[in-house]
């Protein structure tokens, strides 16, 4: 072995390492291929950037519309003012005696957050309330008014719902997903809440469906102390404008309305009852009936029937 310190044949060895040059034709062909490949890679990159720009812009628009929609609509409902209160901007105490006005407080309703969905609203007609995004004015109720229906037992005309269980109606969960609503069969169907005792009712808020702006037909809300709703029935809301439900109530005076996350607030007018029953008969999209949640607000009432 030679001592490496005494020998430096590196230049010779490396010179031997040299190889004949590649063919000119090969060099030129490879040059063209490389430039083509670089150009193709750049073009692909530009296409990808353009795609991301479009996706980003679409996402931003979608987000902006969703946020705008939420800001516009999360504040309230389009509940029409009662007779005598014309502009709807003042707090409204539906059905509340004048002598209780000083002890009224705004009813606090927990509204669900829903994702914006670009569904078309139902075709307008004379019995459909015009959908507007105005905030719902505060609804005044006597101090001490609470949600009486949370977790209360339910019965229904549908013993075997198509989707979900009837218990979902009072479980306190209001979400716009498929696990949050009960779907009852087609035709006129009802759910009934047993408040457990006689109560004075001030407001009933019902969310039929949160995933689409449908309008439900023959929405009738009644209160009674009779679980069979044969006697002492008080009708609080009725948009069965053609009396097709056949309950003998005549044509309803209320309008059909478009569902949204605010739900529909129904003035119960201080009625005293133990049971609340809600009817519907399909909607503008299908024949089924849905309930996400029903909340009955009120206070325990004297059981002597003094109201």
């Amino acid at each position, binding site marked *: 072995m030679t001592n490496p310190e005494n020998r430096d044949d590196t230049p010779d060895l490396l010179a031997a390492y040299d190889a004949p040059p590649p063919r000119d034709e090969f060099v030129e062909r490879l040059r063209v291929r490389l*430039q083509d490949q670089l150009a193709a890679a750049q073009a692909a990159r530009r296409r990808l950037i353009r795609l991301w720009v479009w996706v980003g812009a679409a996402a931003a628009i979608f987000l902006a519309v969703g946020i705008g929609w939420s800001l516009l609509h999360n504040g309230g409902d389009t509940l029409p003012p009662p007779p005598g209160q014309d502009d709807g901007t003042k707090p409204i105490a539906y059905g509340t005696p004048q002598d209780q006005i000083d002890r009224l407080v705004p009813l606090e309703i927990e509204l669900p957050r829903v994702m914006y969905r670009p569904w078309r609203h139902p075709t307008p007609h004379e019995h459909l309330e015009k959908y507007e995004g105005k905030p719902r004015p505060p609804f005044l109720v006597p101090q001490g008014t609470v949600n009486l229906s949370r977790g209360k037992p339910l019965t229904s005309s549908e013993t075997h719902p198509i989707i979900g269980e009837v218990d979902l109606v009072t479980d306190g969960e209001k979400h716009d997903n498929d696990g949050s609503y009960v779907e009852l069969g087609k035709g006129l169907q009802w759910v009934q809440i047993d408040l457990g005792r006689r109560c004075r009712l001030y407001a009933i808020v019902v969310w039929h469906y949160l995933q689409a702006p449908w309008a439900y037909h023959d929405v009738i809300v009644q209160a009674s102390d009779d679980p069979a709703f044969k006697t002492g029935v008080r009708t609080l809301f009725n948009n069965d404008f053609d009396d097709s439900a056949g309950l003998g109530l005549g044509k309803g005076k209320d309008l059909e309305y478009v569902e949204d996350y605010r739900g529909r607030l129904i003035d119960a007018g201080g009625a005293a009852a133990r049971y609340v029953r809600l009817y519907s008969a399909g909607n503008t999209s299908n024949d089924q009936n849905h309930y996400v949640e029903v909340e009955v607000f009120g206070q325990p009432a004297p059981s002597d029937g003094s109201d």
Partner: protein
Amino acid sequence: MTDADLIRAIQAGDAAALETLYQRFLPTVWRYACARLAGHTAAAEDVTSETFLAAVRQVRGLEPEGGSVAGWLLGIARHKVMDVFRRRARVHPSPAAEDQADASDAGTDPAAALAAAETRARVAEVLDALPGDQRAALEWKYVERRSVRDIAGRLGKTEKAAETILYRARKAFREAYERRESAAEVQ
């Protein structure tokens, strides 16, 4: 333009920078392929093509200051050469016969051609084990006979630093070559 500048420019889609890279490193990759493939020029052309095409595909993910461009390209070339060997092994189960056939391509005197091919292969192996900067400096200085100033410019170093790299590269090469020779004698 330093190697790092070249990489940045190519990443931005600069065709002229790609041309510069091609001219600068084609001889390095070509010699490597020829040496490892015993002068089999058709296979060397394949390896060289595939190496540069793969480099263009991968260049976007390369860190310009992350190391020697020569080392990166030769790393790709090494894999391409191994692919050739694997393909040959499938087609020709006897590597010795293949080597002889390759050697006969290199010249009219089979014995001299074989010896030259062996030397080139050994030099290639030794160079392969050197750091990228050292390998490139040696090739540019002793094979392409470039000036130290030119080498310093390509490496993005001062001339003094380039001379230091060359000194260390020569020493490392010589020692590694000696070790390989003695190992071959023992066999």
